[in-house]
């Protein structure tokens, strides 16, 4: 039962005056994809100053520490190349996968998504803006790790420029995965757990040399998108890198990135309106 006093219904002030011919008022403008993506990206990047810098240090020190540990086990050559590449991409996995999964998990659980859902912004702008910002956070840590690794293992730095392609493509794949996990997990603790597990997988399967692993683990390694970033990067340390394979690995990263970001966008839509 509801009570609506008669005065309201018979009153002359009913909403007729502000409507047009079709009976519907004009809608406000929609936010366009690129400007709103840029706005989300900028806002997310500014959060780094407040909240993310300590974690970026943790990510870098973790990778540097792992390389120092592996120095005692690995004696240069191909294994050293994959250790350095794996540790560098691990920084991307830590920030883009783990931290982004946590961020979206908490945002969803606390009702923070309502803010975006009540603005006329394309879902892709929110997801891509956040993923892009998190991928950008990884740049300094990844570069520092790669340079330190090259010095530590005596690897050539001539082709480090390939990071320009590795970071965004591995970043897209891992950030898309992180965003999708964070938005799909029913509880924020679960999002955190999945993010951590993903990062642990990137650590174990990416840094440890693959040829010493059993068949099953190697198969799991092939399923993880960060592996292809690691492989692409590792190949460039050789004296004559096979650029076709590097491009192939990077293409896999890019493909996974497109798919996972599309899934994340779908997950955002689903999470925003319940």
């Amino acid at each position: 039962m509801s009570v609506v006093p008669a005065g309201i219904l018979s009153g002359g002030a009913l909403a007729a005056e502000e409507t047009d011919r079709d009976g519907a008022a004009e809608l406000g403008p929609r936010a366009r994809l690129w400007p709103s993506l840029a706005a989300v990206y900028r806002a997310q990047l500014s959060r780094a100053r407040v909240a993310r810098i300590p974690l970026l240090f943790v990510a870098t020190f973790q990778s540097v520490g792992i390389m120092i540990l592996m120095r005692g086990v690995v004696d240069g050559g191909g294994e050293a190349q994959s250790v350095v590449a794996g540790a560098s991409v691990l920084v991307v996995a830590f920030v883009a996968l783990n931290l982004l999964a946590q961020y979206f998990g908490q945002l969803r659980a606390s009702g923070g998504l309502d803010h975006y859902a009540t603005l006329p912004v394309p879902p892709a702008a929110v997801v891509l803006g956040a993923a892009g910002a998190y991928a950008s956070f990884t740049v300094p840590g990844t570069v520092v790790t790669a340079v330190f690794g090259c010095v530590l293992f005596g690897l050539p730095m001539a082709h480090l420029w390939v990071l320009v392609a590795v970071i965004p493509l591995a970043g897209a794949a891992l950030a898309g995965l992180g965003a999708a996990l964070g938005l799909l997990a029913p509880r924020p603790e679960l999002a955190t757990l999945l993010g951590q597990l993903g990062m642990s997988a990137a650590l174990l399967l990416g840094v440890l040399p693959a040829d010493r692993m059993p068949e099953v683990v190697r198969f799991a390694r092939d399923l993880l998108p960060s592996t292809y970033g690691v492989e692409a990067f590792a190949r460039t340390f050789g004296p004559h890198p096979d650029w076709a394979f590097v491009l192939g690995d990077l293409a896999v990263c890019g493909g996974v990135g497109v798919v996972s970001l599309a899934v994340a966008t779908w997950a955002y839509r689903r999470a925003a309106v319940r």
Partner: protein
Amino acid sequence: MCAVRGLTKTYPAVRGRRGAPGTPEVRATDDVRLDIRRGEIFGLLGPNGAGKTTLVRQLTGLMRPDSGSVEILGHDIVRHPDRASRILAYLGQESSALDELTVSLAAETTGRLRGLEARQARAERDAVLDELGLTPLAGRPLKKLSGGQRRLACFAAALVGERPLLVLDEPTTAMDPVARRAVWSAVDRRRAEHGTTVLLVTHNVIEAETVLDRVAVLDQGRVIACDTPSGLKEQVAGEVRVDLVWRAEAPLHVPEVAALQDRAVAAGRRWTLRLAPEEARAVVATVTGGAAFAALDDFTLATPSLEDVYLALGGAAQQGLVKA
């Protein structure tokens, strides 16, 4: 401008797990019917859990109702929930999306995402921060601010990018009087200049009485009354509320006091009575003289508030409305 008909939403029952008891099915909004007119401040009043936020989430397109219709400015929000964001600005209870941004960037980004051009968003941001007295805090991140300041910053973000309807869910929670005044004068300016309509969710009785044009009283998901605050209060005009605070125990050896015991709602040392004016006069005469007066710490006599209306209408919750 906003018509709600037969809006119903039921939360399914949750089966209990180990250590956590299950909850039965809950009708969060039950056949709600409302009409909000252009340019008015329309309030939803009710205790926590009355279904206010659930109702607002359905009006803003954040939640799909099980049945019923919502029409805002001629647009069907149930069928096209995405249109809500282009008609209204929503201030929710949570600020977690903005917490780590500075006040200035929170307002500007929100304006950009509301479809403003960069220059326009910056200009509106500056105007709104200035209007609300937030300019000195513009460079501080929201989470370093006090609760009331953070709320005001979120309100500022809601105002950037003009909308004909503002939906504000408990906007003045934790605000000091200066900030509250800033909020209501900003709202009044928009009503005067643009005919902006405001839907306000509150459990604060005093605020409801002072700022609302009309109010719908919600209880357990249903609208139990809808009128102007003074119109509602006329329904219980025959009553006066008497609050008696005893020093220690109530002096039940005084026969007149003992006779009141059954009609009083006791909360610690406080007794609250709802009486006809003549009765109230007699009670005051009794307790301000003789043996009862020695036991009396304080008493107040008041005309009815919206809280009394809520209780008189049969509101189930005996507490939950705030008088502050």
